[in-house]
């Protein structure tokens, strides 16, 4: 069970490397959502990557180097660390402590990990925002990232926030539980299997008849939206933070 702080006047923001590289505007949307609830957001510029790509490729020393870098970057305060990605959040919350088990840094890493939350989880459980939908009626499809679902367990929070938006209908996707085939380096190490998975996922999303699909993880987004675009599908994908922000400011 996660222990949520009762309130959060200050929060750190870990934007993730993928947001920084390809989707900084979605990262900004997350910051705005936090600020909207009166939170002072700290976003240390030295932050980089949670280390998951190297971790899942089996390169643990390199992962530790990068992980420890993040631990140090956020060591100057005790405030929560909010992450707009279930996958990166799970890496930092659940896998960092295992990586440093039996090592001198373990206690320090544990203190870091306990402060990590996924964005919608933090909003829904700590900040309790009230959203007023300002947009026209719209149908959306929701894709759960595997680690958001199975490790961070924050899908219910993402959906709870969406449920506040009156004019938004969330449509179910066939085989919603199934991985989109991204899997970090899996997508380039087993490109054929990954391609088969993303094809099926994109087809299931397209079949819903939604106007856009939403995700809480930019890895899935880059994968699925990248495929849809290649197929010249009109369906676009958005990070949930961007969508929420757009809806309440439409």
């Amino acid at each position: 069970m996660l222990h949520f702080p009762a309130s959060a006047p200050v929060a750190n923001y870990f934007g993730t490397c993928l947001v920084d590289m390809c989707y900084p505007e979605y990262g900004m949307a997350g910051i705005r959502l936090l600020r909207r609830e009166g939170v002072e957001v700290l976003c240390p510029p030295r932050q980089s990557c949670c280390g998951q790509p190297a971790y899942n490729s089996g390169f643990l020393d390199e992962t530790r180097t990068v992980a420890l870098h993040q631990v140090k970057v956020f060591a100057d305060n005790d405030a929560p660390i909010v992450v707009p990605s279930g996958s990166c959040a799970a890496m930092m919350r659940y896998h960092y402590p295992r990586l440093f088990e039996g090592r001198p840094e373990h206690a320090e890493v544990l203190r870091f990990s306990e402060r990590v939350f996924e964005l919608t989880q933090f909003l829904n459980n700590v900040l309790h925002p009230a959203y007023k939908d300002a947009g026209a009626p719209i149908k959306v499809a929701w894709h759960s990232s595997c680690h958001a679902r199975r490790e961070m367990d924050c899908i219910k929070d993402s959906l709870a926030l969406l449920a506040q938006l009156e004019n938004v209908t969330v449509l179910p996707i066939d085989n919603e539980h199934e991985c989109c085939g991204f899997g970090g380096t899996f997508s380039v190490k087993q490109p054929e299997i990954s391609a088969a998975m993303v094809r099926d996922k994109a087809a299931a999303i397209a079949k819903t008849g939604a106007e856009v699909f939403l995700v809480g993880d930019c890895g899935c987004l880059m994968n699925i939206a990248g495929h849809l675009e290649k197929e010249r599908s009109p369906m676009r994908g958005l990070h949930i933070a961007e969508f929420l922000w757009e809806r309440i400011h439409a």
Partner: protein
Amino acid sequence: MHNADFTRNVAKALNDAPQRAHLEHVITNFMRGRRGLFNDDEELAALREAANAVKRRVVGRLAEVLERLEASCAANGIQVHWAETGEEASNIVLDITRSVGGKTLVKSKSMVTEEIHLNKTLEANGCEIRETDLGEFIIQLIGQTPFHIIAPALHVTKEQVGAIFAEKIGIDYTEDPDRLQAEARRFLRERFRRADVGVTGVNFAVAETGTICVVENEGNARMCASVPRVHVAVTGLEKIVDRLADLPLMLRMLVGSATGQRISTYFNMVGGPRRPGDQDGPEQVHLVLLDNGRSRMAGDEELRQSLQCLRCGACLNHCPVFKRIGGHAYAATYPGPVGTMVMPQLKGLDEYGYMALASSLCGACGEVCPVMVPIPSIIRRLRVEAHDAHGAVLDHGHDAARMESLAWSLWAKVMTSPGLNAMARKTMAALGGALPAVGPLGAWTSVRVRPKFSSKGLADLLREEDAKEKGSK
């Protein structure tokens, strides 16, 4: 096999549209069945915890439990044999068969006898061994290996079965499942009656009582264990529970996870050979305990968890990779997540290292495993072992992957120096469209557009927004 061969298998499987449609259908049913039985999340979590505890206790003190099992079996008149390798195990079965002057055997479905290639050894030595599980019977007729660990002929349609039976056992073509079953039963009855030795696998061997338990739905395992003069049960040395009282829970978890049944049609408990005054039963019962790499696994705290596996097949049924490529593409006795986890450990990374790459680590397998084997973590561990000179898995360090090591150490440099990091992004943003689509980028763009790198990072946007705010105040 090498990754290139695996890639070829994968391509073939992915292009097999009928097989994929069939798999989608069958696997959806498996999933629905399991979910129908375990429909209360809280209860399921508690059951998995309890089942995990039962198996953890066993694999944590395997030597002690095995000794106890051997003593209890001996007290029941069950003869216990130890086999270090698959070859040894097969030879033990051959020797037992010869010792009673026999050469015909019947066998019920057992993955461990696939692992040791028992049929091959026996046939090479003049014996005849007949598979009696309907699915296994079908694939034996066409010379294939099991497609799925609990449903060996999952990939064969009833029309194909009709054609196979017509050709191989000489019946008139039919695709009526009832008639096909009746024909198989008629054919096999005679084999059961004539067989000298019946071979079964083992689902649970009870250390406390020396009882061999076999789960099945067709009754053929019961025939194998009771009709011939000799019953030989073959098992990996991890398939043990401590106490008789552990059985109800473990049976429920195994059967429910495998087929969604509340209980299997048959549950056989073999307590020893026929005793004076008994009406039936074999004169001899043997238990072959196979190591074949398992004690190496037991020596490592993390890898040891692989030995908790019940071979229920749930991880196959929930794996998005298995669902698309099926069982044969892996070219391994155990396919799917459980195979990915155990094959490299049993047989070494040289031969099966490619399997560890065939996972997106989505976690679906670990989520459903009835004994909570952390399959994704163990697969990740195998990726570490591949280039770890001090590893614990056979052939560890086999793939020194110098290029990849270099790439990751460079990556670590970039990710720990903000200047380099921003520079990398800007370079990619500037070059993005111009980079040749080869290597990883080529793999990515085969079905997706290129990633679009942003010239500005998150920190840039934040700075701009804050400046704007200040300006407007």
